[in-house]
């Protein structure tokens, strides 16, 4: 069973370039603005969209994504509205993969079976759930795979060779390599170390490996993209939204345009990644 993620990754592999994976917080700062940002992503060169599901207690996130989640919740975002956003986006774009990213509790409360059915109907292709390690696979991972939704696992610098097979076992779509031990938005780790880690993971799996946590600029995207199959950018995009919001949350410029400008630059970065590597 192939998903939009599998098809998109195969296409990019044929083109010989890494994917640009862009994260936005669903509903930040409000539903309509967030949907307009989402629609701007593929036009600006994003290959895969990670749609954040806001959670009150995002334990793996730095201040930028914490704040974005709180803005979204304050704006009335719920898991149901995040799914609705995906399906509205899907009505105009049936190609770009959408991966939901967040924490387990809102899904657990929504109900796993109902969530998977609704996610599938909304055109969701994959899930990244930060607080569900392989030890908890029965909760959501196995049901998601049965429902035909990719379950994308995080591998980290603490995932050693002994543990890696367990992490990869039920992973599908791609592997998300977390470039450092830390929270989202921290400084980028030593890129040579990241490349070595990507190589190590690729020794254990045929799946594409995307790298995230700490990538903020086109130049960083280019360097990471030289060895990885994809580059994930989140905090920088969320900050682009925050930067055009005034002290009371009022918009001082169009957030979708601000995000589009940033993403276009990042897209150039990943598109030149392999060329630079070949030089």
């Amino acid at each position, binding site marked *: 069973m192939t998903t939009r993620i599998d098809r998109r990754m195969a296409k990019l592999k044929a083109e010989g370039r890494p994917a640009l994976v862009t994260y936005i917080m669903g509903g930040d700062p409000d539903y309509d603005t967030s949907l307009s940002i989402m629609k701007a992503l593929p036009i600006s060169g994003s290959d895969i969209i990670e749609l954040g599901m806001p959670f009150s*207690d995002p*334990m793996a996130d*730095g201040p930028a994504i914490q704040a974005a989640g709180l803005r979204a919740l304050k704006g009335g975002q719920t898991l149901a509205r995040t799914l609705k956003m995906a399906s509205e986006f899907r009505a105009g774009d049936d190609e770009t993969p959408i991966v939901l990213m967040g924490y387990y*509790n809102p899904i657990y*409360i929504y109900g796993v079976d109902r969530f998977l059915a609704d996610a599938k109907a909304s055109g969701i292709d994959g899930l990244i759930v930060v607080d569900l*390690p392989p030890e*908890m696979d029965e909760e959501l991972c196995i049901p998601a795979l049965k429902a035909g939704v990719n379950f994308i696992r995080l591998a*980290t610098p603490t995932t050693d060779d002994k543990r890696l097979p367990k992490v990869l076992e039920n992973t599908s779509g791609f592997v998300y390599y977390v470039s450092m031990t830390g929270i989202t938005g921290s400084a980028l780790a030593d890129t040579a170390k990241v490349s070595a880690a990507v190589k190590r993971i690729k020794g254990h799996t045929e799946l594409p490996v995307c790298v995230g946590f700490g990538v903020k600029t086109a130049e960083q995207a280019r360097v990471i993209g030289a060895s990885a199959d994809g580059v994930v950018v989140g905090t920088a995009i969320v900050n682009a939204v925050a930067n055009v919001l005034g002290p009371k949350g009022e918009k001082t410029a169009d957030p979708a345009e601000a995000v589009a400008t940033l993403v276009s630059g990042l897209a150039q970065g990943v598109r030149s990644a392999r060329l630079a590597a070949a030089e």
Partner: protein
Amino acid sequence: MNKPATPNSFRTGPDEQGMFGIFGGRFVAETLMPLILDLEDQWNKAKNDPEFKAELTALSTYYAGRPSKLYFAEGLTRHLGGAKVYFKREDLNHTGSHKINNCLGQILLAKRMGKKRIIAETGAGQHGVASATVAARFGYPCVVYMGATDVARQSPNVFRMKLLGAEVRPVTAGHGTLKDAMNEALRDWVTNVEDTYYLIGTAAGPHPYPEMVRDFQSVIGSEARAQIVEQEGRLPDVIIAAVGGGSNAIGLFHPFLDDKDVRIIGIEAGGRGLDGVEHCASMNAGRPGVLHGNRTYLLQNADGQILDGHSISAGLDYPGVGPEHSWLRDSGRVEYVPILDDEALAAFQLTTRVEGIIPALESAHAIAHAVKIVPKMDKDQIVIVNLSGRGDKDVHTVANMLGMEI
């Protein structure tokens, strides 16, 4: 909620996956997973190592002052005119609460594991002080995360931690209470995986913490059980403890769980009443969910967003509870009832006046329930209340509630 079948013993959990029925587990980011597995492995080795046990026993005796006394509260008993009330005097421990029991155990584990740095979260500051204390004793740098609201209302404890050489980092996210402090401690841990030991203060979090903290705190119940048999020649009729995360309560309860005739009551913070959102009674007014590494009863909205809750007592101001309590609730072995801020305050004042003991506001919740049920009991019946900590830290809060300035 489906009621699980009554097990032969209530003392065998958790299973190998760290589950108490549907509760508990290891809901953490992959970065932390290898650390938690390592901790579990080291803990399993340590708990069966006679050398580890001997070192902990020596520290408990000569440093912390164990065993703590089981005290017949004659003044309160006379005042209430019913069953005999005993206090388990955890307030007499070094650092003034039961928290030292767990901290001594975990610092020895951190030492065995070769860790270089201690982090902790704290609500009332009792765990922060106990962590800072053992870090000072064993020469570790220590960072304590504490909600900004709690920093303000527990300033004596903040100062104590600083004197002990710990760095107190105020957390402004959310309501600035224990939940937010725990989030921030987890963020620190996920960043500093190489050298840092996370000293969790309550019987919650990912496996093996709920089991490990319970085992370190079970000294309370083991002592109390032997002491009441020695002093009264029989087991108590009722035992009562306050439940925030629930470590003092599980510590008292666990050794009594299979004593079928002992009624066990856990007290949740009812705050300003269960009708609104200003309480922390997760087992009376919440539903099962996943937070801070475990599945347990949580205060949350219909979208699974965690609520902040409220309690007069910073130590009970947490929207969740340790997973074993959730399981004991559903299995029916333990009753969990709420006590309001006002009731706790009244019990705080009463105990001070008739016993000459200033209890922690957390413990005052447990006493408040005794005040309700003891007068209806027979004079030959026995109630043990866990006096989990002393109330010196709370005098500012109490003065404020009573409209006084000090």
